[in-house]
């Protein structure tokens, strides 16, 4: 089974027998893969009716809810090892609040998003003077669901601001799961899709002996 590049990376990061919550799980591709190969306990959150039906057909536990309320309504603190959100962050109302919510519910979060500072996007906006349209961002500015696009650097800055620790990163291109040397050296220029594994920073003060 060939898995989308970012999903394949996530699969490598997940500890077997862990519990995962996939936000915007689509037709359940990632959950199915993880369930079959790593015996994880998995739930999906999804809003689209057709996707939900596909999940139910495959015996995936799915909760019909939108991302903005779903986490708050249904999930308690630290109830999952991983809360995962692939290629969805940029389409949410408040990515910053959502990431906090992810790290309330999950011990760790895994986020993937398209990097707007990839050189192809930079060329289009810098030289062409128009909003980038690429294979991984196929929308025009007027019909895109992606209302909060960001770059690798933007995301790193958000993590710093929200006291979030970056545990692991990977950068892949849309078609190939291989991460090239250029992507590793200059992720914000050559990484098409960014993958971050994050957690809350431990509060330093409470761990200090009196």
């Amino acid at each position: 089974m060939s898995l989308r590049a970012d999903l394949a990376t996530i699969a490598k990061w997940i500890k077997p027998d862990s519990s995962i919550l996939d936000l915007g799980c689509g037709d359940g591709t990632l959950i199915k893969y993880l369930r079959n190969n790593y015996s994880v306990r998995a739930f999906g959150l999804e809003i689209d009716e057709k996707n939900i039906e596909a999940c139910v057909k495959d015996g995936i536990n799915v909760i019909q809810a939108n991302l903005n309320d779903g986490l708050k309504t249904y999930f308690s603190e630290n109830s999952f090892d991983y809360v995962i959100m692939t290629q969805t962050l940029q389409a949410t109302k408040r990515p910053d609040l959502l990431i906090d919510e992810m790290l309330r519910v999950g011990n760790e979060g895994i986020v993937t998003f398209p990097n707007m500072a990839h050189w192809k996007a930079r060329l289009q906006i810098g030289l062409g003077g128009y909003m980038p349209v690429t294979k991984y961002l196929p929308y025009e500015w007027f019909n895109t669901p992606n209302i909060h696009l960001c770059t690798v650097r933007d995301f790193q800055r958000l993590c710093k601001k929200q006291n979030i620790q970056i545990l692991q990163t990977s950068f892949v291109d849309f078609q190939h799961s291989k991460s090239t040397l250029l992507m590793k050296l200059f992720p914000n220029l050559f990484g098409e899709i960014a993958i971050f594994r994050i957690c809350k920073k431990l509060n330093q003060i409470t761990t200090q002996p009196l």
Partner: protein
Amino acid sequence: MPETIPDNSVGIVEPKSLHFSEPLLLECGKTLPEYDIAYETYGELNARADNAVLICHALSGDQHAAGYLTKNDKKAGWWDSSIGPDKPIDTNHLFVVCINNLGGCKGSSGPNTKKPGTDQFWGPDFPIITVKDWVNSQYNVMNALGLKHWHAVIGGSLGGMQVMQWSIDYPDLIKHAIVIAAAPKLSAQNIAFNEVARQAITSDPDFHQGRYLDFDSIPRRGLMLARMLGHITYLSDDAMRDKFGRELREGKLNYGFDVEFQVESYLRYQGKSFVDRFDANTYLLMTKALDYFDPATEHGDSLVTALSHATAKFLVISFTSDWRFAPERSQEIVKSLLDAKKEVTYVEIDSAQGHDAFLIPIPHYMNVFRDYMSGITP
């Protein structure tokens, strides 16, 4: 009568009955010395006896969930939309059992049947029955039919509450729990509606303290009012507007108190026809069972603790326009299941039909229901 019985119907069904001579201890402290349970079955039990599913009925339901009792029946059973060959509860693969709950009025022991060994109607002396008591009696039916467990227990509304109780009280005997348009317990508003319905019945001069059968009378007006009130709570504002609007029956205002608007005519018709098929004392009992339902009380008032006993996988379904048991009530169930680390799928069906939507074959609802059921077919 349906001209021809449709292919996806279970067809003509046979009413069946079981007699239990072992006394049943009830939650209220009283005992039913002996009792009958009327039931129907659809489909065949397989050789491994692992394909039996139990359908739990709601307030005014009964054992006749699918098919036709005679060729002359105008209407099929109350959940014919979901039970039958190739329907979500697929009788090609499943052995479906639906029973008339104790206290009912369609053949099981209840207020309109005679006290054992006497010629007297039970009437108001029939003990108060709870959801837990029903589940215990359904457990006895399961054994009497030679079944080892239920592959699934399925119900909507008050039926969904029985499903939850099954998953808590007999966790090892139910593999899948399908809870539709239900709530973990009634709200004050729900109880208030039930109380108005009960007052309508008991204040009818023909009620005779519940002994109306001895007086050869029926509290028609009271039961009709109770049903009319119920009907308002089963429909949504939108559904009523779509169905009736402010349409006039005679096309003009008559400036009187007779039926003028179509909605009045509809409610009166629903109320009147209900009186002919339902027993007032049963209505009182069923509403009390609803009021008392709260499985958390036995478990330190925690639904999470209560459900932590369950081993079943859950499918929970709610409907957006249902205000009797709104989606938020199903969300409470789902949240508790998740906190109790249970397996659960939850869908919220977009619908305009109110609480009644659970009986209506809405495409997304039917797809999810069918996909879930076919995925778990033994």
